[in-house]
């Protein structure tokens, strides 16, 4: 385990009024990890993502990305540092096409100015064309190339989830956060997704942190898992350990797993 630490949460905490949604959570993710974040509904998993991506600022504690403190930065600044996410309650740009959604993900790579775009000058034209080509490549990876021109709102659910991943990938992140990427998918789709996620890690060299409720999916895919309950971290370790941890079984997995 000599790989460098990418993400490091130090006592990350956030209160909403009296509710402590995330309470002194500590974990760190190394480069190339496929890391799972699990826990019952309302445990604070999505809120953790919101803390990491700057939607909320921790009330206590710190978050470091590659050694630099990122809490307090605006979401777009954090995206520029190399963290991108998908949303549990799908947030695509509904009236844009599938391809256009991914092109927006390439926004951080824009170099030409506004004037060039307004006058439709060659730099803007070429950049747009290049971003579309890159977007198309990502759509191939996520098996969405055939629906590139469909309005994203009209996609079936499973494809919308994949498009969320394609769009996030387009920002060129080092760390990819996936919030329940398999929710609402059928077993076949889930299997394909697991393969794609692994491919993204192996071939694109991304570090991945994912939230998921489907235990089979998480246990097969992730190499390390953190378990949250009521905002507190109750266990951490490889899947085999988590599966047999009595605290986890009591809080979340139940007897049957």
């Amino acid at each position, binding site marked *: 385990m000599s790989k460098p630490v990418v993400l490091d949460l130090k006592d990350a905490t956030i209160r909403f009024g009296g509710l402590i949604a995330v309470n002194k959570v500590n974990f760190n993710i190394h480069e190339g990890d496929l890391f799972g974040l699990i826990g019952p509904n309302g445990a604070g998993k999505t809120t953790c993502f919101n803390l990491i*991506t700057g*939607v909320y600022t921790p009330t206590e504690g710190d978050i470091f990305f590659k050694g630099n403190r990122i809490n307090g930065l*605006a*979401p*777009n600044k954090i*995206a*520029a540092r190399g963290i*991108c*996410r998908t*949303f549990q309650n799908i*947030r*695509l*740009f*509904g*009236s*844009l096409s599938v391809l*256009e959604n991914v*092109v*927006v*993900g*390439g*926004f*951080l790579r*824009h170099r*030409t100015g*506004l004037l060039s*775009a*307004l*006058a*439709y*000058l*060659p730099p*803007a*034209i070429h*950049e*747009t064309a290049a*971003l*579309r080509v890159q977007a198309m490549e990502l759509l191939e990876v996520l098996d969405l190339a055939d629906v590139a021109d469909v309005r994203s709102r009209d996609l079936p659910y499973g494809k919308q989830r994949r498009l969320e991943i394609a*769009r*996030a990938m*387009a*920002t060129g992140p080092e760390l990819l956060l996936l919030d329940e990427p398999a929710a609402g998918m059928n077993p076949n789709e889930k299997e394909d997704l697991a393969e794609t996620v692994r491919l993204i890690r192996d071939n694109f060299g991304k570090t991945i942190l994912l939230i998921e409720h489907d235990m089979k999916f998480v246990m097969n895919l992730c190499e390390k898992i953190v378990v949250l309950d009521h905002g507190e971290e109750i266990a951490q370790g490889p899947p085999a350990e988590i599966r047999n941890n009595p605290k986890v079984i009591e809080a979340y997995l139940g007897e049957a797993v």
Partner: protein
Amino acid sequence: MNWPIRIGSIVLAIVVCFGIQYLATTMLKSDGQRLVALAGLYVTLAVSLNMINGITGQFSIGHAAFYCVGAYIAGFVSLRFFQAQPLQPVLWLVVMMVLGAAAACVAGFVVGLPSLRLRGDYLAIVTLGFGEIIRIVIQNTKELGGAYALDKIPAIREIWLVWLLAIVTIAVSRNLLKTARGLAFLAVREDEVASSAMGVNVTQIKVTAFVLGSAFAGAAGALLAHYETSILPTTFSMDVSFIILTMVVLGGSGSITGSALAAVSLFYLPEYLRSQPPVSGASLAAAVIVIVAVVAVLRRIQHHYHGTVAKKVGLYIGSIVGGVVAKLILGALFGLIPAFAKASYTGDKLRMVIFAGTLIIVMLLRPQGIFAHHEFSWTLIRRLYDKVRGKGAQGAPA
């Protein structure tokens, strides 16, 4: 990029603008010419507001304020310096447009930055307030004419330039949407949280759109000042803002051509009404009743009928024809009632009623605006045609 086509279309645009000017000056009297010029200004205003409200999804309701800023700055400077300067009048007018645009830019930035950083509809309230502040400031500034007109502005009437500005505004909007950078504006409209998660600086995009839209309104203001030669604070009242907003909403928020077409139609509507003979109370009452009924029927068909598109369109047309017949019969019946028959209303008086009524009807039947976010083009027409004709296979009940 295809330079020959590009240069060709620029030349064509200029030729069209001169064509409009030529036709207007040879065929119309001066008040008719004025309407052609004002229509062009309204196209600029509607299309520039569409950049803010339609494309970027903000809600500015005080667009006339920036029109006002441009007009007063340009009018004031021209009044003082036009005589002493060496430029050709047309060139001077272009300089004044740039000045008006720059002033409106600054105003847009000052108004937009604080309000666009906040969430929610602060922008609406702030832009509305800004319009009132500008009006009061002008009314209390002697140098700007106070409550009276700022007049004796040198007359430089170039209809072609008015329409060229309109075309440039349309072209700029369209260019923006064709580039990757412009997609970020649409993304902000669709979902701010997701946009910022993708690295888009949401505030920057919103302020950019706002400042850009304001700039075009300012340039339009400069043209207005030199066309009218006399401007009043009430020239830019809330009514004007409301009309521009109606144009954008009716045309379909986000549709550039929709905004432009709605601008021309809504601009000429009152002029057309003014030229119409007064209508009787009977006819008006019959029309209102029938319109309400027809709208209700159309809504039912829209939401509850699931046949083929062709049949649906048939039903729409049927209900409208039925409505026209019903209106004639009802009007004749009402005409028997003396109080109804005697009352009469001029088109001019009904202007605002018709505006508001149109807005309500469009909101009920097509909340996304007539063109929604589509652009008017031959492909759109072909698609619609295909939809009506060839829908049989696709639209059959499953």
